[in-house]
């Protein structure tokens, strides 16, 4: 399902605050809450902590993009389906794999990235999440990650 939700409207659900809010919008959420999935949009910003003064993106940023995209999509499900769950603390506890090459991405030449996430499996309180960071115009994949998060 296509949506346009700003993360500012979901701040209640996550403890992240600027300058550590790296995701801007949720643009798609899957239909199945148990197999949570979705796409988030990142408006690249040369003042952000993931960006160097030369406009380069940290390779490791793919991990934080994936973790935050998961958190905000989880929050979006709660809003869309009117769940009354209390906000949860989610901690990144592992990186099972990450391949990232941001060398061709420069701010401000590139302005938008998308982050697609889906839950691979859940063994509560641990959830394994796959993330793909890509350029939406070309679908070129910049990074692929699989992370483990602990949900309190």
């Amino acid at each position: 399902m296509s949506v346009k939700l700003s993360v500012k409207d979901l701040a209640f659900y996550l403890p992240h605050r600027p300058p550590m809010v790296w995701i801007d919008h949720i643009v798609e959420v899957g239909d199945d809450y148990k197999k949570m999935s979705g796409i988030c949009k990142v408006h690249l910003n040369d003042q952000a902590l993931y960006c160097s003064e030369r406009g380069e993106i940290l390779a490791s940023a793919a991990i934080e993009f994936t973790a935050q995209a998961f958190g905000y999509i989880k929050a979006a499900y709660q809003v869309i389906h009117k769940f009354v769950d209390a906000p949860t603390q989610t901690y990144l506890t592992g990186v099972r794999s990450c391949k990232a090459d941001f060398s061709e991405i420069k701010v401000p030449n590139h302005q938008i990235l998308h982050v697609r996430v889906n839950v691979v499996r859940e063994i509560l309180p641990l959830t394994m999440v796959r993330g793909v960071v890509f350029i939406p115009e070309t679908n070129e994949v910049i990074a692929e990650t699989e992370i483990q998060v602990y949900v309190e």
Partner: protein
Amino acid sequence: MDEKLKQKITFFDIQGDGEKFQADLKIPVDWPFFSGHFPQNPILPAVSIIDLSLLLLQRQSKDVTFQRLEISKSKFIGKVQPGHDVRISVQSRDGKSWEIAWTGKSDQSRLAQIHLTLTP
């Protein structure tokens, strides 16, 4: 990492060189990531743990350059907080793949275990 941030970081008690070394680091209280991660409970994000590890690698092994970063089987076990004294131990067998361990200096607690592969 931004040059201004790099200048905030001083590794000390560096021992070893080349492909096996360790260094101590006091996490800056004013590290800018803390204000948003999280305001009531500041914790160094994994992205910073990885980048500080890469910074140490680049300072100690001058040959380390990379465009492609691969990470596997890495764990972030303990909370790293403002002012935390940590020891970072680094080891490589081939100059491309690196095993990095973060431990607390005061109690030797395991904080993070990272496996990195860097490709030019």
